[in-house]
C-alpha cells in the first residue's frame, strides 16, 4: 500500500493553535507529530528586569483559561526566594481560589470541548440542542468556578487580587456566604455530571506511561507537596530540573519532556492526579470514584473526563468546607524585604504540574525566569499514545481517522497557549 499522510491543519476545541501530522506506510505508523504553530510570546525574556511584584499579573497572561495556576506557581516560587511563609489562612484561601479554577476549567473542558466527541457533535453549543439539561448544568458549574475566582480574585480571567505574600484584600464574610447555596447545589450537580460522563461509551484503549503529579500527605495536591510518580519515586520540587528534561527529538521541532532516569515521556493532569492521590479525594469524590468504577490505576486516556468530574466534585466539597469554616480575619499578606536569591515552586494547574523558577536580585528585580507548563511536558506522551491509537482507528476514511486522532488529543485538554511561550516552534505548513 502506498504511503499516505493524515493532517489536521487546525486542532479544534483546544486552547491555542496547533495541528497534527501523521505519516503512514500502509497501515504502519511512521511518524506522529503534534504540531504547534502558536506564535511564541517570550514571557521568560520580558519578565527580566521587572519588579518581582509584576510577576503574578504578567504570568497570568500566559493563559486565559488557567491564570490562577500561573499566579500560584509564581507567588510560591517568589516567596521561596524571599523566605516568606504564607499564613495558614492565606494558604486556605489560595486553595479556595484554585478550587474555583479547577471547577471553571474542568467544567469548560468536559461540557464544551470534550463531551461532544463522545456524543458525535461538533461543539457543546450544537450538543445543547439535544442535551439541553446536561449542557446547561455544565455551564452553571463553569459559572460557579468563575464566580469563585471572581469573588476571591476580583475577576475570573486574569485575577487582580493575588500578590506575593498573599492577597491585596481579604474577602468579606458576605462574599463567602453568598456563594454557599449555589455551591451546595453545585456539589450535587457535579456528582450527576460525573455519573453522566462515566456512562459514555469509552474505546477499549490502554497506554503504558509514567503518571506524575504533586502529592501531599494531608490533602489532595494543589499548591504544595512533593512530586510523586507511578513508578514509586518521590522527588522534591527543588529537584525538578534534575529529574525532568526538555530535549529535541528528530521528528519534532518542539521540545519534549522526558524523565532523565528512564529517557521516556510521562503524563500529567487529572488522570495522573487521581491515579496517584485517590485516597486524598474528598469523601464524596472518593465514594463516587468507586461507584462509577474508575480503575485504581486507569490507563485509558479517554477516561480522563471522569477524573475531571471527580476533581470538580472534590473542588466543590473542599470549597464548601473552606467557606463554611471560620472566616479569615488575619492580615491579607505577609510582608517581606528584598534579598537576592532563587526560588522554585510547582502547583497543580488543571492540566497538570506547572513548574516556575525565578532568580531575583537584591533590588527585587527578576533576573531569570523559567516556566515549564504542563502541556509541553505532556506533549511527548500524547504523541506516543497517538502512535498506538492510530493503528486502532485507522480506516480508509481519512477524515474519520483524523477525527479519531483529534478526539484523543482533546482527551488530554492540551493548552497550546500555555505551552508555546517555551516550546521550540517551527512553522511548517504544506
Amino acid at each position: 500500500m502506498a504511503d499516505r499522510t493524515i493532517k489536521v491543519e487546525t486542532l479544534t476545541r483546544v486552547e491555542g493553535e496547533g495541528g497534527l501530522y501523521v505519516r503512514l506506510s500502509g497501515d504502519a505508523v511512521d511518524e506522529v507529530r503534534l504540531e504547534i504553530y502558536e506564535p511564541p510570546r517570550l514571557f521568560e525574556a520580558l519578565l527580566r528586569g521587572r519588579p518581582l511584584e509584576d510577576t503574578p499579573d504578567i504570568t497570568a497572561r500566559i493563559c486565559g483559561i488557567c491564570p490562577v495556576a500561573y499566579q500560584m506557581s509564581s507567588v510560591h516560587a517568589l516567596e521561596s526566594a524571599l523566605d516568606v511563609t504564607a499564613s495558614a489562612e492565606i494558604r486556605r484561601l489560595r486553595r479556595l481560589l484554585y478550587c474555583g479554577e479547577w471547577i471553571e476549567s474542568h467544567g469548560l473542558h468536559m461540557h464544551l470541548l470534550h463531551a461532544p466527541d463522545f456524543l458525535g457533535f461538533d461543539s457543546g453549543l450544537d450538543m445543547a440542542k439535544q442535551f439541553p439539561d446536561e449542557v446547561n448544568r455544565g455551564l452553571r458549574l463553569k459559572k460557579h468556578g468563575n464566580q469563585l475566582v471572581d469573588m476571591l480574585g476580583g475577576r475570573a480571567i486574569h485575577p487582580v487580587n493575588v500578590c506575593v505574600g498573599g492577597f491585596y484584600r481579604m474577602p468579606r464574610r458576605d462574599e463567602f456566604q453568598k456563594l454557599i447555596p449555589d455551591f451546595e447545589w453545585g456539589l450535587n450537580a457535579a456528582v450527576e455530571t460525573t455519573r453522566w460522563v462515566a456512562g459514555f461509551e469509552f474505546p477499549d484503549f490502554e497506554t503504558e506511561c509514567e503518571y506524575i503529579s504533586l502529592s501531599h500527605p494531608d490533602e489532595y495536591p494543589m499548591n504544595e507537596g512533593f512530586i510523586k510518580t507511578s513508578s514509586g519515586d518521590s522527588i522534591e520540587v527543588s529537584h525538578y530540573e534534575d529529574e525532568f528534561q526538555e530535549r529535541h527529538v528528530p521528528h519534532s521541532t518542539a521540545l519534549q519532556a522526558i524523565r532523565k532516569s528512564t529517557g521516556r515521556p510521562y503524563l500529567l493532569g487529572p488522570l495522573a492526579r487521581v491515579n496517584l492521590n485517590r485516597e486524598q479525594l474528598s469523601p464524596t469524590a472518593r465514594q463516587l470514584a468507586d461507584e462509577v468504577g474508575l480503575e485504581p490505576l486507569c490507563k485509558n486516556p479517554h477516561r480522563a473526563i471522569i477524573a475531571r468530574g471527580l476533581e470538580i466534585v472534590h473542588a466543590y466539597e473542599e470549597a464548601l468546607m473552606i467557606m463554611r469554616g471560620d472566616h479569615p480575619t488575619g492580615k491579607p499578606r505577609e510582608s517581606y524585604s528584598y534579598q537576592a536569591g532563587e526560588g522554585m515552586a510547582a502547583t497543580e494547574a488543571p492540566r497538570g504540574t506547572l513548574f516556575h523558577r525565578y532568580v531575583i536580585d537584591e533590588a527585587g528585580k527578576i533576573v531569570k525566569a523559567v516556566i515549564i507548563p504542563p502541556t509541553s511536558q505532556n506533549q511527548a506522551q500524547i504523541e506516543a499514545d497517538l502512535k498506538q491509537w492510530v493503528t486502532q482507528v485507522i480506516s480508509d476514511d481519512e477524515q474519520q481517522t483524523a477525527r479519531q486522532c483529534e478526539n484523543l488529543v482533546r482527551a488530554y485538554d492540551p493548552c497550546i497557549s500555555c505551552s508555546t511561550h517555551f516550546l521550540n516552534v517551527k512553522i511548517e505548513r504544506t
Partner: protein
Amino acid sequence: MEQEKPRLAVFKFASCDGCQLSLLDAEDQLLAVAGALEIVYFPEATSRMEDGPYDIALVEGSVTTLHDAERIQQIRKDSKYLMTIGACATAGGIQALRNWADTDEFIRAVYAKPEYIQVLESSTPISDHVKVDFELRGCPINQYQLIEVIQSLLAGRKPRTPQHSVCLDCKRRGTVCVTVAQGIACLGPVTQSGCHALCPSYHRGCYGCYGPAPQSNLVSLATHMEKEGDSRTEISHRLHNFNAYAPAFRNESQRLLEQDGE
C-alpha cells in the same frame, strides 16, 4: 421562511485565549447568542470550520509572525465587519514589550535552538495591518461589553461602550481614591473604563488593562508620580504593560525614558 442568521467567526493570533473565552464565559447569554448567530468558525469552541465570507469577525491576539501578517489580510477580505477583542489585538499585548528590545536576544534567552523560531521583530495591533471597524479594549475584555457590541451589531445601532477614565468609576462605586488616601500609584486617571474600577476596590492601583482613555493627560500624571518620589524609569515601567504599545502609553514612556537619558 427562516431568515439567514449572520455568520460569526472568531480568530486567534498571539494571545492567551482569554478574550475569546469571555464569549464562552457569558454562560447566561451564551446559548442565546449562539442562537442569534451562526457560529461558523471558532476553533476553540467548535470543530465546524467554514470558509468566509463572514458577517462578523472577532479577532483576538497580535500580529507577531509573517504568516499571521498575511492571514489577517485574508480575514479582512472575508469579513464584512471586523472587530478586535482585547489588548493584544488592539495594542500589541504584553508581548509588544519586545518592540523595545532586541527580539533575537529575547529568543536566545528563551529557546535552546533559536534558529527554529521565526517571528517578526515586533508585536503589533491588528489596526497596523488592516482596517478595523471596532476595537474592544481590555486585558481581558469585559464580557458584558462584548455581548453589548454583538447585540448592537445585530440591531444595527452604535455600541454603547464608555470612554471615560477609571477614576469616574471609582467615584461611582464609592471607592476611596487609593492615590489620595494611601499614596498608591494608580493609572486610573489615564486608563479607559471597562473594568468598573476593579483594582482600587482591591486596595491596589490600576495597572492600565484597558489602555489609555481618550484625551488623558499622561504628562500631568507622570509629573505627579515624580513629585511623589517615583523615578522616571519606574513610571515608564508602569506604562510598559499590557497596553504598552498603545500610542499614548508608548509616547509618554518614551518621553520619560528620553528625559531620564538626558
